[in-house]
């Protein structure tokens, strides 16, 4: 789901940096109060899990491949602000060390996956009721992958219209939304299911340990 460098026009990523910068400041406020001795080791382990999961390519039926995201687990355990910050750190490391996702695309990836993904998961946890807890949880984790994938696809699909040469040939990502939305969304439906199952496994473990009430 990471957008690499050179795919997004400056007209798109410069405003995205401004918006993401605002959200990074918002997420960092009162960080000292929210990070205690119990939360930090858990956050470290889950962030490392998201980092590793994002780099292991899994084969998807149809010949494509994809990777897990881990934003559902981060959102479930730590809420929007910490999950957004932690996932932004994951994206930064993946971009710097592996070139998976780019520095210019970082704010778009962080906003779409980190902020929107964590928000979807956190809201589904808030609306969760005891009777249908598993349904809310798995649906939330599934949508926390699929909705950001749709957003990333729309941002990419808009690039030919945003930046092109005089003859109309695109300067950056060349495919329109009619091509890129199904190409990105369909594999992420499968990834979303796997991510929901992984989130469910972590939720059961976290529930036994009492992490969810912390």
């Amino acid at each position, binding site marked *: 789901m990471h957008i690499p460098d050179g795919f997004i026009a400056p007209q798109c990523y410069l405003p995205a940096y401004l918006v993401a910068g605002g959200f990074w400041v918002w997420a960092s406020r009162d960080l*000292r109060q929210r990070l205690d001795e119990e939360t930090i080791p858990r956050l470290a382990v889950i962030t490392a899990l998201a980092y590793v999961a994002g780099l292991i390519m899994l084969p998807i039926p149809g010949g494509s491949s994809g990777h897990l995201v881990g934003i559902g687990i981060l959102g479930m355990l730590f809420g929007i602000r910490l999950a957004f910050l932690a996932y932004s750190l994951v994206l930064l490391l993946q971009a710097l060390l592996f070139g998976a996702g780019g520095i210019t695309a970082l704010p778009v990836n962080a906003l779409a996956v980190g902020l929107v993904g964590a928000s979807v998961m956190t809201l589904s946890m808030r609306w969760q009721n005891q009777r249908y807890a598993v349904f809310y949880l798995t649906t939330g984790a599934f949508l926390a992958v699929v909705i950001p994938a749709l957003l990333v696809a729309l941002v*990419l699909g808009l690039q030919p219209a945003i930046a092109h040469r005089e003859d109309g040939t695109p300067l950056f990502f060349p495919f329109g939304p009619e091509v890129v939305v199904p190409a990105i969304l369909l594999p992420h439906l499968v990834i979303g299911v796997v991510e929901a199952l992984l989130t469910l496994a972590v939720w059961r473990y976290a529930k036994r340990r009492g992490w969810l009430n912390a």
Partner: protein
Amino acid sequence: MKFLQFFILTMQNRIRLIFLFLIFTYSTSVYPHGAGITIDRQEAQVISIQHEDDTPLADVDYELSIAGEEWPYQSGRTDARGRVVFIPGTERRWRLRVFSADGHGLDERFELDPDPLPHGHADHGVSRISKLVLGVGILLSVFGIALLFARRSKR
């Protein structure tokens, strides 16, 4: 006398001659629009592009440009083994952009070896597993420092 009359052009014959001249002139001007080929041997560069799991990035769009130039030098689709083949000539600095419809791809600037001998070279940087471990190390260090600050502020 009859023999001489044969060479004397009537008005009607002049028009016919001009018409024939125009037809022949036009047919020779059509000739350069045809296509021809020249076959010779030249040094080509082969770039192989892979997914992160080392499978070839086959049949995806690419755009190869001389560094700093807006218009591409060559564009097309990678072959079944994820390769781009091009003849660089004297140009050394290049930019390759590869776009897959599912959002994968790359934007790579590279410089060709001035040595014309066909030595292959690959990116032998830090291995993937080393980078993975390095990343986990950096993450744990960042959170370790945060933990130290959390403990200090508690005191």
